[in-house]
Structure formats: structure tokens, C-alpha cells
């Protein structure tokens, strides 16, 4: 039962990240907007070059780019959380 529920939530996450996210607003978010209003955003830089910068796959120039990035992100988030937490969790007393 739980396994099926987890699978369903992952399906929803994949659909949201790979599909619904294509409809996302590209306007600056609240933090950037406030930074533009008050001036603090102008010193912003990037010290780390990421493999999938700004939720896009470098070299792909269509909607597929951010869709793929979203799908990779969901899989990665689930996988990393599982890997870290399994180490932390104790054996079930069931």
C-alpha cells in the first residue's frame, strides 16, 4: 500500500517538474523583485558552475531542456534523500 502511494507521489512530482513547470512564470521572484526595488540584487554573482544551470540542460534549446532538468531533479532529490536517510534511520521494530 505504502509502496503504491510513494510511486503515485513520484509520478505527480515527475509530471509537475517535467510538465507543469513549463507553464511557470519567468518573472523575477519576490526576493529578486525586492532586490531590484531596494538595489541589493546588483551584487549577485555565481561562484559555482552547476551542471544544469537555471533548470536547463546546456545545449538543448527547447522546452525539452527544462522538462528534462525537472525530471532529473525529481529523481535526484528522491535518490539523495533515500541514500542519506537510510543511513540515519533505525531498523523497523515491525
Amino acid at each position: 500500500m505504502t509502496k503504491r502511494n510513494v510511486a503515485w507521489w513520484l509520478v505527480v512530482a515527475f509530471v509537475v517538474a517535467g510538465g507543469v513547470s513549463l507553464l511557470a512564470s519567468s518573472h523575477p521572484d519576490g526576493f529578486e523583485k525586492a532586490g531590484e526595488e531596494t538595489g541589493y540584487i546588483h551584487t549577485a554573482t555565481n561562484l559555482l558552475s552547476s551542471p544544469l544551470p537555471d533548470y536547463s540542460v546546456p545545449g538543448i534549446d527547447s522546452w525539452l531542456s527544462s522538462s528534462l532538468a525537472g525530471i532529473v531533479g525529481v529523481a535526484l532529490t528522491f535518490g539523495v534523500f533515500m541514500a542519506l536517510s537510510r543511513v540515519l534511520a533505525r531498523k523497523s521494530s515491525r
Partner: protein
Amino acid sequence: MHIPDGILSPAVWTAATAASALVLAGSVRHSKRTLEHRAVPVMGAMAAFIFASQMVNFPLLGAATSGHLIGGALSAILFGFWPATLIMTTVVAIQAIVFQDGGITALGANVFLMAIAAPAVATLVHKALKSFRVPMAVSGFVAAWCSVVAVSIVGAALLAWSGVIGFAPAAASLLFWHAFIGIGEGLITAVVIPFALRSSFHFAAKEGLGA
């Protein structure tokens, strides 16, 4: 609310990183004591869902601005404060390292804001409202809204402490936008919680709500 590199002063991002590390050490200790193996995939699915939801920026007020879910309240209400810090830290760290969303020097500060302050405030507000027997949807909405607004105030404090801007103007501007973003956070939280509880998420952590 993802702070990029280059804005916070070294003293501030170092302090925020130290504070976050301290709390996360507590989270690790807590989960070694209480986290059960079978709960891990359920929490992982919520982490994945929150990552996905954060990609969906919703437009605000036709004002050329957008906001997105943080998810700190959602994870805290479902699983309790300590597990929520682990879920949110995973999301925020992956965003910074893999997707360049939020700076690498600011990672500790972003963890402090979204993975610690947001779940902490949501937990406190939600517990308080629950003792007044406020319906789940309402307390979920209010807790989520409060978490976003609180995070924007703490963010303003970090900016002010960094010396980039005064606290009052930073807080005024951040608060204004996040008061609206918080409504989105509240709505999504209130809508998702019942679905999550129905799909057996509640057993994952004892401090979470349960059904």
C-alpha cells in the same frame, strides 16, 4: 527566497552556515533515534514533490513578479520539525549545487531560512492553532503563510546585518511581496495536506499530525 552569491557578507554567511550546521546535527541525532526505515521512501517522495513544486513559479498581482512554494510548512506539518529540516535541506542543497538556484556561499543561509526557520515557524503556529481546534485546512494555510512571512523578515535581517541595505527598507519590500507569495504557499499547503494524509504519509513521523 534563494539568496545568490555575492550579497551576504562573509561574516553573515559563515555565521548562518554555522547555525544551520548546528541545527542539522540535531536533526541527524533526532532521526537516528526516531526515524524508521519504512518511513524514508514516503519522506523522499515528499522531498521530490516539493522540489517539483518549487519549479512552478506562479505570477503575482500582474506586477511582473512571481513566487513559488517553499514547502517548509508542508513537510513540517506532515512529518514534524526535525524530519522537515532534512527534507528541505536536501531540496535546497540540490538546487544550489545542481541547478545554480541559490549561491554556494549562501547555501547555509538558504538552509537556515527555508529548511530551518520555515518549518520551525510553521510547526509553532500549527501546534498553537491545533490546540484551539482550528480545522486542519485553516491552520495549514495560516502556518504556511506565517512561515513565508517569517522567512522574509529573517532574510531582511541577514541582508541588513551584511550591511547591504537597512533593515526597514529590506523588510518592507520583502514583506510586501512575500505576504502575497504566502497566500500561494498557504493554498498549496492546505490543498496538499489532506491528499498526503490519505496516502499514508502520516505514519512517517510521530510528531507529524497523523490522521
